[in-house]
């Protein structure tokens, strides 16, 4: 996984349990309901498929993804490759896994520069209230645990007290924060931060940006400017553009991913707030349509509540039969 080359090896093995715990609600919701749907029904009939459709839709997979997955299943049923309703879970699981796996190939391409320039600039972006600042705190914690030198850049100069919020995360993780006054030009803050990072031999500059709706073209242009500024200061920067997505987000998530990718070239997604009952199905829809890899999953408010995303693990957890 490219994430290992960039952010070091994944945390200790408890990760799997924690991920499992985090998506237990998802699993319960999706897997159990599929089980429930197939249980007691030997023959696969239209009613059953309809029920499965509702299940996938209810997990925020979206109409297109759900239709695609179910069409494939239907074809196999029609060709009489499947006679037992119980096989459906495995088939759907396989289809979903395929969708998530298809992103992996692409994910490898962007980390490939031979002479790595330092500092590596990581731009963290997303719409309002998805959890950018919190995720940055967790990311910084993870990198520091991996003996990397990290600098935070408070480029959200717009929202009230955003800088203070990042500073508190800086204190919690022992990371320095480069900031200017509220209302300052975010690109200027970024330029400053990269300058200090160079002077101090910093490995990673993590840039907190203001939340912005992807429909506001002026704010998207501001983001593009930041990206250009980073590129001028360090060749190849921003090396990572991480789009933070709220797990409760519905189909609008696709539009967000599209627009942010168009404007600053998103390199990966972090799915935040997966510790609720939100199903995270939007991940699959995004992976299917945009082939964007999902890097991490946020599962709580503490600094170590960020775990690497692994498609197989994720799907496995979804479909594990023992509840909770």
């Amino acid at each position, binding site marked *: 996984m490219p994430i290992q080359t960039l952010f070091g090896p994944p945390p200790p093995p408890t990760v799997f349990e924690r991920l499992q715990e985090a998506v237990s609600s998802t699993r319960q919701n999706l897997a159990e309901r599929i089980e429930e749907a197939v249980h007691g029904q030997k023959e696969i009939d239209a009613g059953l498929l309809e029920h499965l459709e509702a299940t996938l839709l209810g997990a925020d997979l979206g109409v297109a993804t759900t239709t695609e997955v179910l069409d494939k299943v239907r074809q196999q049923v029609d060709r009489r490759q499947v006679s037992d309703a119980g096989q459906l879970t495995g088939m759907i699981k396989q289809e979903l896994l395929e969708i998530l796996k298809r992103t992996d190939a692409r994910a490898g391409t962007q980390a490939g520069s031979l002479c790595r320039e330092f500092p590596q600039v990581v731009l963290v972006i997303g719409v309002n209230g*998805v959890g950018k600042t919190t995720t940055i705190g967790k990311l910084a914690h993870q990198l520091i645990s991996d003996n990397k030198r990290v600098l935070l850049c408070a480029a959200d100069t717009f929202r009230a007290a955003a800088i203070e919020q990042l500073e508190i995360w800086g204190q919690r993780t022992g990371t320095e924060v480069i900031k200017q006054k509220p209302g300052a030009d975010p690109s200027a803050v970024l330029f400053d931060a990269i300058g200090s990072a160079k002077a101090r031999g910093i490995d990673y500059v993590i840039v907190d940006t203001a939340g912005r709706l992807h429909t506001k073209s002026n704010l998207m242009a501001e983001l593009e400017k930041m990206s250009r500024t980073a590129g001028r200061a360090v060749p190849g920067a921003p090396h990572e553009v991480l789009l933070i997505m709220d797990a409760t987000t519905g189909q609008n998530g696709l539009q967000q991913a599209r627009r942010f990718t168009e404007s600053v070239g998103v390199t990966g997604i972090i799915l935040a707030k997966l510790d609720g009952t939100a199903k995270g199905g939007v991940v699959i829809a995004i992976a299917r349509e945009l082939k964007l890899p999902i890097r991490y999953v946020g599962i709580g408010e503490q600094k170590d509540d960020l775990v690497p995303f692994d498609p197989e693990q994720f799907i496995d957890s979804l479909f594990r039969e023992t509840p909770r």
Partner: protein
Amino acid sequence: MFENLTEKLQRVFKNLRGEGKLTEENIQQALRDIRISLLEADVNFKVVKQLIDRIKEKSLGQEVLTSLTPAQQVVKIVHDELVELLGGGAAQLRFASQPPTVILLAGLQGSGKTTTGGKLARWLSRHGHRPLLVSVDVYRPAARRQLTVIAEAIDMPIFEGPAGPADPLELARLARREAANTGRDVLVVDTAGRLHIDDEMMGEMQQLKQQLEPAEVLFVADAMTGQDAVKSADEFHRRLGLTGVILTKMDGDARGGAALSIRSVTGQPLKFVGVGEKYDALELFHPQRVVSRILGMGDVLSLIEKAQETVDLKQAEEMQRKLLSDRFSLGDFRDQLRQMRKLGPLDQILGMLPQVGPFRQLQQVKLEEKELVRIEAIVDSMTPRERNHYQVINGSRRRRIARGSGATVQEVNRLLKQYAEARRMMRTLSGGFMAKRMGKLKLPSALR
């Protein structure tokens, strides 16, 4: 807000429009498309199912009215059904008989409670109240500081409480006393974002409610929320007894199906929508208007309301007279652009217009806010004579205007061309065409 759903339904009914009558077959197609639209708009699948069942039942059971085409009839049924689901008329805030009225804001992390708290305080003060703000979010870093900064920005009093660690219940209690002592009649309480399955945090919320006896417990929800909206809203409602909902971030392109979902599980009215990052971007929620928008009838009422607030009526009349009498100069053009900018972001204004008839093309117009500033600068760089008689603007004048406004000659040319076209269009319209067209336009029921 809802643009995409609007487009879809319009396409559905355009297909239906050719039909002479409503058959089981063509209604099936329409229903399937409506279903997909609603699902893509993030309306919960169970809610969609109920809606579709009811719409189908009504469509098929009803006799075809002679006054309506089948398509219109389906539109009407869908319209009525959505309005009914959203609760009919606009909901008002409730106030306690004994001040201070306490308004408790609750919701998931990142739904926009703190910003909404500031907007609500401003809205209240504009409507003759004397609000006091307090944040009892002692968990998220700098959350209380955030509300303080907002309070300063909108010039509203805030109860900051003692510095250092604090207890939410104690903070709330002190704030309430402060409100009573200083004669503030509404206390807006911003709380920490929490997950509906976090038993401990939900317990804290229940205690807050018990202690404060709020007149309103408002659930602040993100318009971008997906299927999960029903679960979180349901649990918040079960634990707290919500009295209303505020839907935030409606200025994006989220289709806002969460509005229907949340309403359907809580049964509580949507009271406000957040429509921008500025602190006055909070509007009362009008089910009629939102549904009108869903169905492509446009939110004309909101537009009129806004226009009345910002546009000088005399000036507008004068402008109209000039428009129709072909004396519409570049200077007037600029004034009008200014007026328009006062109304708010352009995409917002365009979104409120009906997507039918003469307004249809307008939807594709993608005017940038910055472009307007440019246009203004160009016009400002003209002499009064040039503004009144655009024909005199020759090549050398164009170069001068471009230099003066920091634009290129091409930009100046483009503006002049657009202006000339607009004038030509106005001439056509003023020839009775406009009047005929406008007379034909059916007003949405909310307007009648």
